[in-house]
């Protein structure tokens, strides 16, 4: 709905069938005369009356449609499955990591150690997330180079690192400078390592009680030491638990031991699987259960060197008192959004640190069912080219919709002013003619069949008539062919766009295409927008002779089914639900073409061409119906 009118969405059939099912394709081939071979659930869920399902048209307003409708440029096409692939039908593989700010690539080996963030000078403002710039404090130049000290400053909210009292000596390598300044990581890590080495025998304590006394003994010196920063604590905790797992799982060959550890580390799980096949050891361990020693018990971190942090008893009070004080106030407290990217201890604006920019990725895409690569970008982060790019737009006809400038004189309707119909407020019950152009990007001519329900689904029933539902589109050819043909294509093009100006002379006829070009065909669609539930009352009464029965049908049949989600109106019929006034036309597109059989060219068959067909639902967003009858 966010797109401006008119727009086109294409429904990926994967939303209806959870498993990509070749049977569905076969079915559609067997019964091509059916209007809707891709109806949801025709194969597995045959328990529901199948015919009914078969006839079901696609409702762009149904909640399920949200998950299957995509703008055409997001769709891919798998040449092996001969199917449209939406972002849910593919798997992605990372080609490279890069910083969106400096556009430098980060090697995959470095990504983890750098915390998935840019290791250079790229930072985001902790207050507003805008990028920070490195700038100098004093405007002194010596020998043409600027001198420090340097700060990071936000050009958007004017925050600088001076607000948290940080200056840098050099304008480069800010990340390492910052980590040295703010967090005693390197120092803390060394400290914890040395302490941890001393304490490593502790981790083999069989019971916690035993250890508690020991911890109580040497609790004094730990607390006297400077508390390590959050990063150092995390490193200490990680090391501690890794040790614990290693110690408690006695031997990798023991199935029980690895069973236990398997929950913590994946290599253990692999070991367990492998040991399944060495059946002798498994059986022996089952049958002669030798009395084992008491299994070692995992314990939690108990000292600061292991990463435990016990906050001071009055820590909460201090925080609350500071929040309530005058110098802090509302502005001094960090918001939830700001805190979510910071260390968990950060409560105030002063605690917020500049955020190194998160890396982004370039990804290649594969078909989920056949694993063929659909998209493979160039490796370099800055490049916008692709090595492989199988987008749906080069296979399915590209649909563009535009209103016919002047609605031809209709019985009972005087010719409107010669203006382009305003798609944001279509008048109810006033026929609008639209031109749908389908452009073929394949090098084979395509035969297209369009089908649409005569009245759009939903409460606002809009009558839709495609004047020429069967059409042929010529093959795409090289751009050079067009150029070498001289001015003819140019004339065609001008006539095509000129149709907007002289359109009133031409009357759309049923069964005839509106216009045709080398690889495109335009058909006319006539639309009679329905009346909205609230404002349509007056309209339907005023136009009783026009579509009396139809309007009544809509209201009566749907009375019981519709709920008023807003709960504001007494009469649910009068209440317009959000975006119910948007006119969206579902169109079933079936295309057939003869393609060269590239797969089995060596096997010389009787004919080199294979008949292919593709069918999908397309939704045309035409416009918004205005509540008033007269503009």
């Amino acid at each position, binding site marked *: 709905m966010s797109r401006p009118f008119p727009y086109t969405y294409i429904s990926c059939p994967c939303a209806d069938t959870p498993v990509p099912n070749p049977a569905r394709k076969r079915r559609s081939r067997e019964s091509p005369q059916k209007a809707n071979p891709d109806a949801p659930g025709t194969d597995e869920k045959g328990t529901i009356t199948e015919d009914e399902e078969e006839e079901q048209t696609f409702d762009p307003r149904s909640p399920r449609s949200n998950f299957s409708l995509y703008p*055409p440029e997001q769709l891919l096409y798998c040449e092996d499955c001969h199917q449209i692939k939406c972002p849910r039908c593919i798997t992605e593989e990372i080609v490279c990591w890069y910083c969106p700010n400096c556009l430098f690539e980060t090697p995959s080996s470095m990504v983890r150690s750098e915390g998935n963030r840019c290791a250079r000078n790229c930072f985001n403002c902790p207050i507003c997330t805008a990028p920070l710039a490195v700038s100098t404090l004093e405007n002194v130049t010596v020998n043409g180079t600027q001198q420090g000290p340097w700060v990071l400053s936000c050009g958007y909210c004017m925050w600088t690192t001076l607000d948290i009292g940080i200056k840098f000596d050099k304008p480069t390598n800010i990340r390492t400078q910052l980590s040295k300044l703010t967090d005693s990581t390197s120092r803390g890590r060394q400290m914890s390592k040395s302490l941890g080495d001393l304490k490593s025998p502790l981790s083999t304590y069989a019971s916690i009680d035993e250890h508690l006394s020991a911890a109580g003994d040497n609790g004094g010196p730990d607390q006297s030491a400077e508390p390590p920063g959050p990063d150092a604590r995390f490193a200490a905790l990680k090391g501690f638990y890794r040790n614990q797992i290693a110690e408690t799982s006695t031997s990798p060959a023991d199935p029980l031991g690895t069973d236990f550890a398997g929950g913590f580390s994946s290599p253990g799980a692999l070991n367990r699987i492998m040991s399944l096949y060495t059946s002798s050891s498994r059986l022996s361990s089952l049958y002669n259960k030798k009395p084992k020693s008491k299994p070692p018990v995992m314990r939690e971190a108990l000292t600061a060197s292991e990463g435990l942090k016990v906050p001071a008893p009055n820590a909460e009070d201090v925080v609350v008192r500071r929040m309530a004080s005058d110098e802090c106030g509302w502005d001094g407290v960090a918001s939830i959004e700001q805190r979510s990217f910071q260390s968990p201890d950060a409560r105030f604006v002063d605690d917020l640190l500049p955020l190194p920019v998160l890396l982004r990725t370039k990804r290649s895409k594969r078909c989920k069912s056949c694993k063929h690569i659909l998209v493979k970008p160039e490796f370099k982060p800055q490049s*916008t080219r692709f090595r492989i790019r199988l*987008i749906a737009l080069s296979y399915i006809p590209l649909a563009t919709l535009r209103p016919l400038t002047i609605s031809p004189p209709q019985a009972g309707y005087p010719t409107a002013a010669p203006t382009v119909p305003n798609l944001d407020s279509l008048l109810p019950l006033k026929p609008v003619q639209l031109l749908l152009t389908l452009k073929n990007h394949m090098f084979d001519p395509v035969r297209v069949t369009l089908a649409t329900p005569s009245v759009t689904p939903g409460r606002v029933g809009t009558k839709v008539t495609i004047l020429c539902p069967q059409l042929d589109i010529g093959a795409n050819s090289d751009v050079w062919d067009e150029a070498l043909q001289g001015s003819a294509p140019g004339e065609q093009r001008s006539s095509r766009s000129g149709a907007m100006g002289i359109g009133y002379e031409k009357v759309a006829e049923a069964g005839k295409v509106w216009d045709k070009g080398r690889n495109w065909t335009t058909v006319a669609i006539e639309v009679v927008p329905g009346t909205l539930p609230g404002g349509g009352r007056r309209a339907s009464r005023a136009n009783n002779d026009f579509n009396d029965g139809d309007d009544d049908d809509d209201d009566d049949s749907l009375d019981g089914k519709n709920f008023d989600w807003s709960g504001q109106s007494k009469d649910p019929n009068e209440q317009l639900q959000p975006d119910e006034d948007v006119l969206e036309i579902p169109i079933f597109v079936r295309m057939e073409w003869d393609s060269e059989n590239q797969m089995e060219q060596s096997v010389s068959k009787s004919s080199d061409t294979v008949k292919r067909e593709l069918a999908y639902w397309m939704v045309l967003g035409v416009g918004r119906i205005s509540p008033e009858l007269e503009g």
Partner: protein
Amino acid sequence: MPPKAFKGEYIETDTGNKISRRAQIHGTQRIILGGKTVIQTDAVIRGDLYRSSSSHASSTDDPASAAPSPSVAITVGRYSYISKQAILRPPSRLHRGVHSYYPLKIGDHVFVGERAVVEAASVGNHVHIGKEAVIGGMAILKDFAVVLDGTVVPAGMVVPSWCVVGGRPARIVGEVGEGYGVEGADGGLARERYRLVGR
């Protein structure tokens, strides 16, 4: 038929640029249009804001130094479209105590929405700038970037290719599909847009 506008609203140049007579274009000799560019009514293009050559006698980095004008303020590529009331201003920066302007480069097939303000250092090809967006000074929009309506791209921000930014300040909120920018589809409508201007 609507009454014909006086002599046509647009001036069409030799290279096919369609420039509204009511656009405000300053310093025309420092503006390069690549051809088939559309500039609509009340758009403001500040070619008069250029780097004064006094501080930069040897501007070797300027690619247009060979052009008759000493420095170019604004370059716009082919099939770009500057909507009504949009403002193009070369970015400026205080560098070593001197306030100077830098050239604004706009690529091909770029769309600048209504009432947008662009002070970017460079705008790549096939970039879409929504209406009422603000592109801050020295920002860089790479090819196929999309700036949503009403976004404020902060000064100095880099928007990578294929990324969609939105919000104030702008953040990367998504990516466009691989088919973006294909002729005739979303992001590839520049030729069609050009064709329909001035009819």
